[in-house]
């Protein structure tokens, strides 16, 4: 193991037993997932150490497709896997579904993966982790306008084993690390939070050298105290790279998850390959195979290797994200997008690293073309129901005659997914990718590490909430 993990390996002995169980199972499909992990987490707020904790987690699950229905059992006593396996066969056969679920087979994969890391989190002394995050927390509260802060550090190192009845056996020594930094500035009744987060697969180095981020967070929170709210109504909006990324993840990405589509005739007609979704220059991709990024997966939680999937090509719908089940149902290829937040949960169709490809324009040209409008940067949060979306940008500016003016806060953008994509007028050439300790939520599984990104975008007719 890289750097020598300090935890006891609670699953190594179970793998051989699991192999016998899955290969001997006479159901359509069986898989076992096992994991053993250790994580350290530090949360500082203002002058306080809110928590500094460290814990070990062990777990496993069995998923069986039997007579066209799924049974799933999760547990934290892997040594009892035989009885859990039997129980899973039992519950999956207690029901005879009228419509049978079928899944797409995949080749047997026998591999081991490691997260490359420079400073493995398991070998970094607690003292060093504490002192790094304390340093950031000091920067976060450097202005007298800052009322309070929160600086969070988290790492998880885990060993994951995946086995299925097709003969796949994959092990993965995984390391994830990240920080989240926020300052809350206050001036009388005005309270203004601002935060940023960085995370990815790798070692302690991901969290190091982020002083500039901390400075930016503190400064932005303080600057926002004097910012104004934009007028409500319809505006031309220039979205920065982060907002462009969140937009494509929230507004379009979820629609391309095939589990929303595969059994819905009407949605299938709307999401037909070749339909125009955006302007000619719009290209959108999802790829789990980009190392380091928060959405990196060497294989998905159904043992499928990740593909680069072109979701939109030249403005036309050109692909979607699949699990084995949705791929089979729709007669398309698997893409390696079945993911779960942990072994105790069932894999569902999820994004990985989702982004808009660069277009031809630089930021200056886009601002010039915008004329009068709103520049919206970063994001606080967002939500979509596959037709409408709402999200709040971190901060922004008025654009007047192509130049940035007054600072804005509380920019809430909302709209219809389909018309807003078609309303993209210009695509920048300065794409950036973003991860963070938060993540994506779906089907009660949150947070799942993902990353997203894009270049600057000019979008017309965006509904902004606020007084007229």
């Amino acid at each position, binding site marked *: 193991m890289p750097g020598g993990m300090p935890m006891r390996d609670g699953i190594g002995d179970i793998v051989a037993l699991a192999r016998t169980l899955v290969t001997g199972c006479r159901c359509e499909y069986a898989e076992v997932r096992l994991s053993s992990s250790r994580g350290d987490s530090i949360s500082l707020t203002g002058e306080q150490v809110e928590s500094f904790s460290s814990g*070990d987690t*062990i777990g496993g699950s069995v998923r069986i497709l039997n007579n066209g229905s799924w049974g799933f059992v999760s547990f934290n006593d892997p040594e009892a896997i035989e009885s859990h396996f039997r129980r899973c066969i039992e519950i999956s056969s207690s029901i005879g579904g009228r419509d049978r679920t079928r899944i797409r087979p995949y080749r047997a994969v026998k591999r081991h993966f490691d997260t490359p890391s420079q400073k493995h989190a398991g070998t970094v002394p607690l003292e060093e982790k504490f002192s790094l995050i304390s340093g950031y927390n000091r920067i976060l509260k450097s202005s007298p306008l800052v009322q309070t802060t929160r600086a969070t550090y988290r790492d998880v190192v885990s060993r994951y084993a995946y086995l299925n009845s097709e003969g796949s056996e994959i092990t993965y020594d995984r390391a994830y690390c990240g920080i989240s930094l926020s300052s809350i500035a206050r001036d009388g009744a005005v309270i203004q939070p601002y935060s940023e987060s960085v995370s990815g697969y790798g070692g302690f180095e991901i969290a190091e050298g982020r002083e500039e981020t901390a400075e930016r967070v503190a400064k932005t929170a303080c600057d926002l105290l004097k910012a104004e709210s934009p007028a409500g109504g319809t505006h031309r909006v220039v979205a920065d790279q982060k907002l462009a990324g969140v937009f494509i993840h929230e507004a379009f990405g979820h629609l391309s998850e095939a589990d929303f589509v595969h059994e819905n005739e009407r949605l299938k007609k709307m999401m037909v390959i070749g339909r125009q979704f955006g302007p000619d220059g719009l290209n959108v991709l999802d790829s789990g195979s980009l190392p380091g990024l928060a959405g990196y997966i060497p294989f998905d939680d159904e043992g499928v290797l990740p593909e680069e999937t072109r979701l939109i090509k030249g403005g036309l719908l050109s692909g979607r994200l699949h699990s084995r089940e949705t791929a089979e149902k729709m007669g398309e290829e698997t893409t390696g997008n079945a993911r779960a937040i942990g072994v105790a949960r069932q894999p569902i169709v999820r994004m990985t690293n989702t982004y808009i490809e660069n277009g031809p324009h630089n930021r200056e040209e886009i601002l010039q073309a915008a004329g009068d409008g709103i520049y919206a940067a970063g994001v606080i949060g967002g939500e*979509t129901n596959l037709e409408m979306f709402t999200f709040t940008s971190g901060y922004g500016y008025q654009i007047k005659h192509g130049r940035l003016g007054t600072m804005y806060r509380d920019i809430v953008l909302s709209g*219809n997914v389909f018309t807003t994509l078609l309303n993209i007028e210009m695509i920048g050439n300065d794409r950036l990718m973003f991860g963070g300790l938060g993540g994506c939520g779906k089907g009660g599984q949150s947070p799942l590490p993902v990353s997203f990104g894009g270049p600057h975008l000019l979008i017309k007719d965006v509904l902004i909430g606020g007084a007229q």
Partner: protein
Amino acid sequence: MIERVQDRLSGRARWFDIIEVSGSSTPISFKNNRLHSITERHNTGFGVRVNVDGRTGFSYTNDGAALDDMAGRAMELSTWGDREDFELPAEAGTHFEPYDGAIDSFDVKSEIAAAEETIAAILARFPGATVDLGISRSTASSRIVNSSGIDASYRSSHYAASIGATLILDDGSRIEAAGTLSGLAPLDYRELRDEITGNIEAALTTRKSPSGRVPVVLSPRAAARIIGIVTSGLNAKSVYRGISPFAERRGSAVFNSALTLRDDPSMDSSPFSYPFDDEGVPAVKKRLVNRGVIETFITDLKHAKKLGLAAGGNGQRSYASLPYPSFSNIVIDPGIEPRNRMIEGIERGILVEQFIGLGQSNTLTGDFSANLELAYLIENGTITGRVKDCMLSDNLFHLLAGEIVLSAERKRIGSVLAPYIMLPAVNYTG
């Protein structure tokens, strides 16, 4: 197993507590109108908190074989902990259990049959709809052991049914109606089904309304959601951090006198009730807002000490985290106006069932801005259709300080018991 950890810590720590949580659940999931999967989950976890020389350390595990290691690590981590001078309780108080033995009547086959009947009834009315339905049974036990002599535990049971129905119309617009019902034992959820079909029916026609300030009625579901903007400021942790807008306003009238808000850990038939919190503190009913006046804040032991509040059993945690102040059941007292008369009195207004994106704004100051996922236009006292692609943006604290009307009827939505709330003038962007 806990006894081993106790022995290890005794005499080495100023105080300690150990939490053990174990449970199992059986979620049955229907997706796209048909049975998709049956799941069984089992988990047990332990968390240990120690105070050494006044500093607190914490560690957790769900691996029974790693308990010794866990205790050692908590001791080690206390070196970096904050100075905390509160004491642990010695008595967890009188007991009741949020547990109903009837949870054992949960039967997978009959639940599947009832779910299939529900889906068939919705499809009979809207043949093009897709229904996702989830039913879940769970039982759990919590145990707290501490160095002041507490060794207390209780069982809990939880049954939940959730239905989400989506109908896509010819023009591509989407109607999504959803709801959840929960209790301590299996429930009949036909009423929830009828509410959902009723909500879809009323949304089949789309209406437009001009932007401006309009009367808004929040359904119990929408009210339960939006009240979170208020309750987050009634949390002792936000008060201590100086980010609660109510920090210096204890005793002052902040809202209209129609608003009374309680935390009630002993509510009947609610799976969100409990006899004592995760620090072993007896859980008692408390009034947070009394006729518009801020009375107190919910707190855990740490913030009770820091702010001079009485701890009333709001320290909650999973085994893998330290306690933090959290609500049990939130109760909004009812008004006297019947819901129908409230709507009949509106010439032109909006009835909100479901927001989308609420809480993404800077809600510390009461500001909110949200799209309306499911909302209706009220014209001359009648609901005439759905409004969509529109937003409500305003300041909730200002709205609740002004004229408000609460209905006599209430519903428990998750852990919030809420009436319909009428706000006479809210900023609407269409």
